[in-house]
């Protein structure tokens, strides 16, 4: 490689080659020149690497931005137009209302999704008693759950379960946390585990959760659901099934 300075013309020729901005004939001549000039080959390799370094940083920034965009949506939406006049605001509001009404009509979710949204509400969790006993980790995860920190709750409860400290309570709340994370398959698995504990106090709750997941996944499958008359959720299940069949 040349150790002295690289003139601007050569630098820009290499740049055009690396970025694919040469026409066919220029490209052919440049490659021919490279074939006989090892130093030029090394300069091309070095400049390509420097360009890649800049591009990679850009790709990483983009991914960061995309990954963070979920949290930034709210902040973005509140920034606009504090200085606009009230009449303008009204006009905008009316236009937005029309657009939303049309969009809602065209894009409204299917009935089973609507029913799921209507009947599903996040479980409030259990009261937390923070002591130094062996339940500390469970209670710590319950605090996360109640604060809406579902991934943290899932991690802690999964660890407990993996360490053989499974129980119907743990399985049920693990299922609830997965459900709030929209990870239906994992939620189903956890709720099915509750059913493996005979006489569990969470049996009917888990059954109701499975009913709602099935409703969301496959309304045809839920139509043949066998409603347990003893369940405190039986009326709600029948209402859903009734409205599905109308």
């Amino acid at each position: 490689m040349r150790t002295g300075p690289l003139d601007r013309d050569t630098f820009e020729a290499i740049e055009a080659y690396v970025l694919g901005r040469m026409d066919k004939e220029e490209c052919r001549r440049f490659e021919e020149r490279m074939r006989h000039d090892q130093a030029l080959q090394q300069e091309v390799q070095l400049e390509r690497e420097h360009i890649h370094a800049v591009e990679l940083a850009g790709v990483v920034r983009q991914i960061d931005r995309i990954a963070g965009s979920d949290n930034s949506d709210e902040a973005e939406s509140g920034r606009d137009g504090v200085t606009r006049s009230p009449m303008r605001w009204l006009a905008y509001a009316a236009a937005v209302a029309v657009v939303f009404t049309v969009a809602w009509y065209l894009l409204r979710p299917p009935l089973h999704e609507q029913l799921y949204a209507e009947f599903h509400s996040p479980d409030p969790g259990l009261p937390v008693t923070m002591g130094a006993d062996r339940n500390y980790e469970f209670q710590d995860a319950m605090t996360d759950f109640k604060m809406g920190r579902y991934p943290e709750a899932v991690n802690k409860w999964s660890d407990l379960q993996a360490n053989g400290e499974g129980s119907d309570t743990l399985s049920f709340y693990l299922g609830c946390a997965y459900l709030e994370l929209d990870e239906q398959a994992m939620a189903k698995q956890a709720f099915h585990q509750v059913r493996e504990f005979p006489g569990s106090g969470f049996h009917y709750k888990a059954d109701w959760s499975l009913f709602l997941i099935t409703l969301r996944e496959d309304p045809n499958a839920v139509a043949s659901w066998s409603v347990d008359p003893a369940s405190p959720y039986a009326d709600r299940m029948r209402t859903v099934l009734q409205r599905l069949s109308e």
Partner: protein
Amino acid sequence: MDRSGAATPEIVLATAVKHTTTSKTWVDGLRRNDTSTIRSIYDAHFPAVRQYVLKNSGTRDDAKDMFQEAMSVLWLAVKDGRFDTNVQEDPGGFLYRVARNKWLDQVRSAAHKHMKVVHDERTLEQTSELPDDLDDRLGRLREIYATLDDRCRTVLDRFYFERKDLATIAAEMGVEEESIRTIKYRCMMKLRAHRLSIAGEEGTAS
């Protein structure tokens, strides 16, 4: 199915694959650093990586880090022309395997020895598409970029990553086009000088 009967990440992956466009489109998009391509790959394939990391003692931030690493590897492989689009129809499998192996490396590190890995057998697979030197090269590229000052980054980012022309960059920065051309040249020459000095030191040391 895993031991608990849940859908495996491979199944999740197969679902995600449906959402992406044709291989030619995404390979071309990545070559051009196209933002919408990066976004569509993220949207389609991040959930599978997130699920794997969450199931294996990680957090959402860990999953994001692993996905970012995997995307960097994929991007560099595409830039190198190492990604055979005729064989590999979709980047999902590649991304998943790279992210999974990187997470396993982390889990196996001293700080995470207490963690439990759920998918033992599959996790022992190697990412055969991943050349050994890619990690080193990515590290080197990051080091190179770290040596740039803010002004150089501003100009070079817009020219090489965003692919804006000199006139546009000049207008955005309120300077003459020729100034941008000169700044770009000087910044790239600073990088070159830095690299040559390192190569010189290594040559002297050996």
